[in-house]
């Protein structure tokens, strides 16, 4: 059985930002929303994708310039995990996070 530790504050920030954007977010937008450095963000995104908490797809829109880029979306599993981890977090600090996750 794989033991999953309680997510770090940075991971919770990322999950919360993604929960508030049903259409998904690019890495740069996510970085700005979560207030994290890219070197912190991408390893966490990789781990979350491996756990199945988020989907990462290549964006191939016609109006896009430059190479394809990843767009990250929270999966149902990730949304469930976010709810689970914030339920025992003291209010009111995470009241907004809970409402976003729901």
């Amino acid at each position: 059985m794989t033991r999953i530790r309680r997510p770090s504050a940075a991971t919770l920030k990322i999950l919360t930002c993604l929960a508030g954007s049903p259409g998904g977010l690019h890495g740069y937008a996510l970085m700005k929303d979560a207030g994290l450095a890219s070197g912190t963000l991408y390893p966490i995104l990789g781990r979350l994708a491996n756990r199945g908490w988020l989907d990462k797809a290549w964006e191939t829109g016609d109006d896009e310039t430059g190479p394809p880029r990843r767009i990250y979306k929270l999966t149902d599993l990730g949304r469930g995990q976010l709810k689970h981890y914030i339920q025992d977090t003291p209010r009111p600090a995470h009241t907004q996070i809970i409402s976003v996750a729901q």
Partner: protein
Amino acid sequence: MSQILDKLLGVLQSKLPETKGVGLSDLRAEAAHIPAGFTRVSFQWSGVLAAIGHILRFRVGAQKMGQILLAFALTIFFWTGLIYTVNAPHDGEIKLVLNFVFPLYQIAAVFAVTSLGILKRFTSVCSVLWAMVWVILSLGVLGSSSLPIDFLRAIAIEAACIMAGLFIAASFLEWIEDGRHA
């Protein structure tokens, strides 16, 4: 600059095991969509630092990296202290004390790399001895001597605290390795 960092990210990406990927390919793809300039460079630079950190962790190991960094910090402390002591216009007694204290940190640096067990023993003994020196000096036994008592007390308590800190650091580094095998 941005192109150089992108090439560097490519090299670092090739050094990381596939299973331990830290999203460098995604980061590089995203960087191409960020307006050129400081924003893009800082985005890439953060990725470069993270990749170097991961490579060192996977190839060298967290414990060994901790040992090397601890030894590096102690070596810098030793050399800057020594250079300062040589050039400072202190009297002979103070120079003598400093010349005795600073090499202890360099010895600790050697132990930090070679054996954490020896480092723990060395720092615990040093910490206790320096604490005893501080207590003896505080009792006023040498009050009538011409020695710089206040300076010696300051050095003794500082050395005791630094050695205690090094003992904690060595214990923590040992615990990292134990935790990995648990």
